[in-house]
């Protein structure tokens, strides 16, 4: 991230921007269907960035590069929507039905079709978004083509815990308790003691991130809590549920984080693919401020914390924390080498905690009940609970709160009810596109960080996508690598070129030279700058290991 561009921004707005380049350009697309040079110049004038920088931004994000007609339809190409038919047939059907190609707008400007990954309606794929309506599941496209789409119903979430941690409505009890009885240092000790592992995918201890920022002597107005709500994993809709159904719990968690580390401001970065998340959070912020639970002098404690919500514009890699910080400031969402870590130089070059949505939603419980009670939830396993989500192939898809250490069988068969229509599980992809693929024969594996790692898989963010027995694993490799290549931010060379080369190797039906493919995967794993290039080989490794013939490697 360019230090000078950040300086230019801060010089222009004094650290309090009313809008970013991304906001200006998204509004332009909403107004007249595309970004023009006049829009880029305007974005530069409104933010203090050079014109060239705004141009770079306008060519990066899916929402800014795909033209919009008077009617704008988005088709989800996420893995759950793919798994619904084992193909992208719904994409071709949408193109044929609307008479417009993917990423294009009809000549008369009446209709446009854009690709999006992913809408978070993985429980009912394939999913489409027509204007503000998300239609999903069998018949969805037909209803869109008939001009009568209706909003898909989202299943209620369920907890397997007697006392749910994450799906109980946020009631500010943790914050009240902490402000009344704990010093910031004592809260930090509880969170460190709870071994709260990040739920976004990497599993890094949240308390450790907090401690770096807490130790920094900067004043509260120069420290930030940034919530990573960029749940880009195709097949995951956990943070979507948390942000839309339980925003008060998230606000409480981030306010506690601010209290512990001495930060006075926070941001939630949401995805444009979840259009209801930002309004839900904005409404919850207004309620919390009115109730004295957020803003100045919270609950009469003297502690103040303010939250703003920013929405992204379509990019998977923006979920990586340095890319997220760049995007939060309106820049291209590319990854930066660490060090410096965000805890040292984050938002506007100042100390910043970046935590995932679900991670912070655990904090109110820890603040209220302490580290020991938190550890007792999942005996002998990772402390706390985890939200998982199941895709449309399951008989009972949805979001479930589970204990760590339960078997995948109890999740898939017990909660999910097995697959629908008598199908059987050929494989699961757990934790997003960077997670390995587990054969259906290994369902007795425990759902926890180490047990999954032993099978070349990962817990990741907790999304579980089942592939049924009809799935063609070569086609799955094509689907995954197309996604990987499309979403590469383009910064580091191995990922920028290597994922395209890997996709090209499996694109047709020709046999793949196993040694060559494995060398390419190793290059990606060893050399990539972030987990995108480093992680995309994992599912391909699983396919080589368990289905070499189907994959066509020799």
């Amino acid at each position: 991230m360019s230090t000078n561009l950040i300086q230019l921004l801060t010089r222009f707005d004094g650290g309090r921007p009313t809008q970013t380049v991304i906001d200006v350009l998204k509004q332009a697309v909403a107004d007249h269907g595309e970004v023009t040079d006049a829009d880029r110049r305007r974005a530069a004038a409104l933010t203090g960035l050079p014109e060239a920088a705004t141009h770079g931004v306008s060519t990066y994000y899916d929402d800014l590069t795909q033209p919009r007609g008077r009617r704008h339809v988005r088709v989800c190409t996420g893995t759950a929507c793919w798994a619904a038919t084992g193909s992208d047939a719904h994409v071709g059907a949408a193109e044929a039905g609307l008479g417009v190609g993917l990423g294009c707008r009809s000549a008369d400007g009446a209709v446009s079709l854009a690709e999006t990954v992913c809408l978070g309606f993985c429980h009912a794929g394939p999913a489409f978004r027509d204007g503000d309506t998300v239609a999903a599941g069998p018949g969805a496209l037909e209803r869109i083509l008939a001009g009568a789409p209706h909003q898909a119903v989202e299943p209620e979430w369920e907890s397997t815990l007697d006392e749910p941690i994450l799906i109980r409505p946020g009631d500010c009890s943790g914050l009240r308790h902490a402000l009344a009885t704990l010093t910031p240092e004592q809260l930090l000790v509880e969170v460190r003691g709870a071994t709260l592992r990040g739920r976004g995918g990497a599993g890094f201890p949240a308390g450790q991130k907090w401690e770096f920022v807490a130790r920094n002597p900067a004043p509260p107005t120069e420290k930030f809590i940034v919530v990573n709500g960029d749940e880009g994993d195709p097949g995951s809709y956990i943070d979507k549920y948390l942000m839309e159904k339980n925003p008060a719990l998230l606000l409480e968690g981030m306010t506690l984080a601010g209290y512990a580390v001495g930060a006075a401001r926070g941001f939630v970065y949401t995805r444009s693919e979840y259009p209801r998340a930002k309004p839900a959070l904005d409404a919850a912020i207004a309620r919390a401020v009115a109730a004295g639970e957020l803003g100045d002098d919270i609950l009469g404690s003297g502690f103040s914390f303010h939250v703003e919500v920013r929405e992204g514009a379509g990019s998977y890699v923006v979920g990586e924390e340095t890319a997220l910080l760049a995007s939060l400031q309106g820049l291209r969402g590319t990854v930066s080498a660490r060090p410096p870590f965000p805890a040292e130089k984050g938002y506007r070059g100042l100390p910043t905690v970046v935590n995932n949505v679900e991670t912070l939603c655990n904090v109110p419980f820890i603040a209220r009940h302490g580290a020991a009670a938190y550890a007792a939830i999942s005996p002998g396993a990772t402390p706390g609970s985890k939200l998982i989500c199941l895709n449309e192939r399951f008989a009972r898809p949805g979001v479930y709160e589970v204990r760590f250490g339960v078997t995948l069988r109890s999740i898939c068969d017990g909660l999910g009810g097995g697959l629908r229509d008598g199908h059987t599980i050929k494989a699961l992809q757990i934790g997003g596109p960077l997670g390995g693929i587990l054969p259906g024969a290994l369902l007795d594996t425990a759902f926890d960080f180490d047990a999954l790692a032993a099978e070349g898989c990962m817990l990741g963010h907790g999304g579980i996508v089942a592939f049924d027995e009809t799935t063609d694993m070569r086609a799955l490799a094509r689907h995954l690598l197309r996604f990987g290549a499309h979403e590469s931010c383009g910064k580091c060379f191995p990922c920028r070129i290597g994922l395209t080369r890997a996709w090209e190797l499996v694109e047709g039906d020709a046999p793949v030279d196993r040694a060559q493919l494995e060398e390419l995967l190793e290059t990606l794993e060893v050399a990539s700058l972030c987990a995108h290039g480093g992680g995309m080989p994992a599912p391909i490794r699983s396919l080589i290991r368990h289905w070499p013939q189907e994959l066509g490697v020799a």
Partner: protein
Amino acid sequence: MRLTVDGVALEVPPGTTVLEAARSAGLWVPTLCFDDRLAPFGACRVCLVGVEGARGPVASCTTHCREGMVVHTQDALAGRIARNVVELVLSELPAPPAAHTELAQVAARLGLDATGGPAAQRWAGAVHEQSHDHRHPYLAFQHELCISCGRCVRACDEVQGAFALTATGRGFHANVTAGLGHGFAESSCVSCGACADTCPTDAITERFLVELEETR
């Protein structure tokens, strides 16, 4: 702070990168996105070295020296992976890089044949589309030769402060452009030539120098 690089004991000030330490000892570490006038970027991943106790090779340009660190610039895995990355870079260009370019020289030193063009590569596939900007009096841009190392963008930002250049696109389609994409002539370019000076592939060149070369 003391460390060992290829068996050579070094003492360096805190904040020194492994690449700086290795080069201070006269050791060669290949790089493509590095320019010592610019902040380390960590994009090319060609400067990989082995560090004892690390999980795998690390990018030496963005790794800081630590007390007691033991570095091997000739680490076999690091060398093999760096070579693979440069091979991938050669495969994205529609034509071989000119022999005098930094890319061609790094490739040659890693034992790669940079002269064959894409057809000679084992990673045959998509290559960058030809697109030229020849309208500026002093600077020319051949976008298909761009390897997105970001050196020109950073030189324009960090050295000249003109902010005339930006990275564009993403993934394989990443490139660089001036201003709003209509060429140097219609950008805030001040014709300083810092971009051409640092470009490792001749994607950006100074026209007078090229013409001088051609008329010789």
